[in-house]
């Protein structure tokens, strides 16, 4: 892999950028791999990267049915934070947060992780109780968190309305929360994994699993069979479809989740603002668009569309927070397919099929955990046993009742 730097940029400028190499190869699949990762989103690519660079397993393929990062990785609102309530979550998302730091340097790819601060607004006594409970828990888990008074909020976000139908009574701030460039995360992991020997195979759909005596031995794909000693499925919205191919069900439902961007403008929102009370969140990308999202549609769908009323509700909430944005314009709106669990926590787990592992259920909020999820999943696949941080997220919890219920105490989870 030729390194990227200011110097390589200048050097290449003199040859009119004719000599840049491919960011990743496009190899034909081998007959067999030690590990096959199904799904070329951020989580799948990160898993492959850590397998190859930390676990010494380089005979790895990532198989993607479309284009890399074209799933939820390429369509999320890029919020990164680790201020979750439960200890299990704090460990997982906190782990990711540590990896975000220095990730650009590790991958030699600028993923533009921007810890610009993230605010959760509280609009009612109940909201205040919720952020206080969560803020204290986060603090005691060793993660940064602060409460802001309404005055401090006003100072930090000058143009936001503090009064309105739902006045701002306070906020929870995570300073290291922020955003990262979604596409760059997928591309950076892909390039670095490729450099470490991983085969990235796009436009190749997994259509079935070869299972012998309860053990997976390979995958069937649109480009033929590919053998595998271990298979990790990281297909987000399509996880139930994959599980059906393997003969079991998942505690998941796939819903449309929509987002939108405004036309680009000069900086006006400098941090990430989330409100459970009015139900929406907003940040501004480096290009200047306001990036806006809210809750998912309430019906199962695989169409990457969603219904228009959600957009309307979302912007109502945004304009309640920012009445002066009514003259701003929506540039584009889109949808993803999010795989949602009842407890709003992911599933990183063994399955009824030996050597077949699933990493899914990230629902509306897994982008932020891309490095952490890939890291613990890689170690789990390499050892044949779940990483300690991943263990509580086994799918057995839906039988035992040991849910990690991030939904029960707080409402939104992005």
């Amino acid at each position: 892999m030729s390194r990227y730097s200011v110097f390589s940029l200048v050097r290449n400028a003199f040859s009119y950028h004719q000599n840049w190499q491919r960011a990743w190869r496009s190899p034909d699949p081998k007959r067999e791999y030690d590990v096959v990762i199904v799904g070329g989103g951020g989580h799948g690519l990160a898993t492959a990267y850590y397998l190859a660079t930390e676990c010494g397993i380089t005979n790895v393929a990532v198989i993607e049915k479309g284009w890399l990062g074209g799933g939820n990785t390429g369509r999320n609102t890029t919020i990164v934070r680790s201020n979750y309530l439960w200890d299990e979550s704090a460990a997982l998302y906190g782990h990711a947060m540590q990896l975000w730091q220095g990730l650009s340097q590790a991958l030699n790819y600028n993923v533009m992780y921007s810890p610009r601060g993230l605010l959760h607004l509280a609009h009612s006594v109940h909201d205040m109780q919720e952020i206080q409970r969560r803020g204290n828990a986060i603090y005691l888990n060793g993660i940064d968190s602060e409460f802001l008074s309404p005055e401090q909020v006003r100072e930090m976000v000058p143009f936001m309305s503090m009064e309105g139908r739902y006045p701002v009574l306070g906020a929870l701030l995570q300073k290291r929360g922020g955003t990262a460039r979604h596409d760059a995360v997928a591309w950076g992991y892909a390039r670095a994994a490729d450099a470490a020997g991983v085969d990235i195979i796009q436009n190749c759909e997994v259509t079935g699993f070869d299972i012998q005596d309860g053990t997976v031995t390979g995958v069937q794909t649109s480009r033929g069979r590919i053998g595998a000693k271990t298979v990790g499925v990281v297909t987000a919205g399509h996880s139930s479809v994959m599980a059906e191919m393997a003969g079991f069900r998942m505690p998941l439902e796939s819903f449309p989740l929509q987002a939108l961007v405004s036309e680009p403008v000069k900086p006006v929102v400098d941090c990430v603002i989330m409100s459970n009370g009015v139900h929406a969140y907003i940040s501004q990308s480096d290009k200047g668009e306001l990036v806006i999202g809210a809750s998912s549609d309430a019906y199962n769908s695989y169409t990457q569309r969603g219904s228009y009323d959600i957009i309307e509700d979302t912007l109502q909430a945004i304009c309640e927070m920012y009445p002066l944005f009514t003259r701003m314009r929506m540039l584009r709106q889109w949808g993803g397919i999010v795989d949602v669990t009842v407890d709003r926590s992911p599933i990183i787990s063994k399955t009824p099929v030996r050597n077949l592992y699933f990493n899914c259920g990230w629902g509306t909020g897994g982008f932020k955990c891309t490095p952490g999820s890939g890291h613990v999943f890689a170690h789990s696949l390499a050892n044949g046993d779940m990483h300690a941080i991943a263990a509580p997220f086994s799918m057995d919890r839906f039988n035992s009742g040991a849910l990690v219920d991030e939904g029960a105490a707080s409402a939104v989870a992005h």
Partner: protein
Amino acid sequence: MFLISCPWCGERDQTEFHCHGEAHIARPENSLEMDDAAWGDYVFFRKNVKGVHLERWTHDHGCGRWFNAARNTATDEFLAFYKPGEAPPADLERVS
């Protein structure tokens, strides 16, 4: 934005309705004899099919009734609407 046919009120805008997920999940009669896994399956595990999905809706802003629909989740095309207690139409698999 779907156009949904309430079996009682006829075609109405989606915003009058709410979806409640998979239909035809009968509550087990013998729950106390079930093991944790079987019970967990009833409470949490869903088909979540990509294809014809039999699902429940309520007409919240209209008659308030629950009813079922068959919808292809890969295209969002509704194939049938039917009342609770009725069996889904037989020939749904033709599309998917």
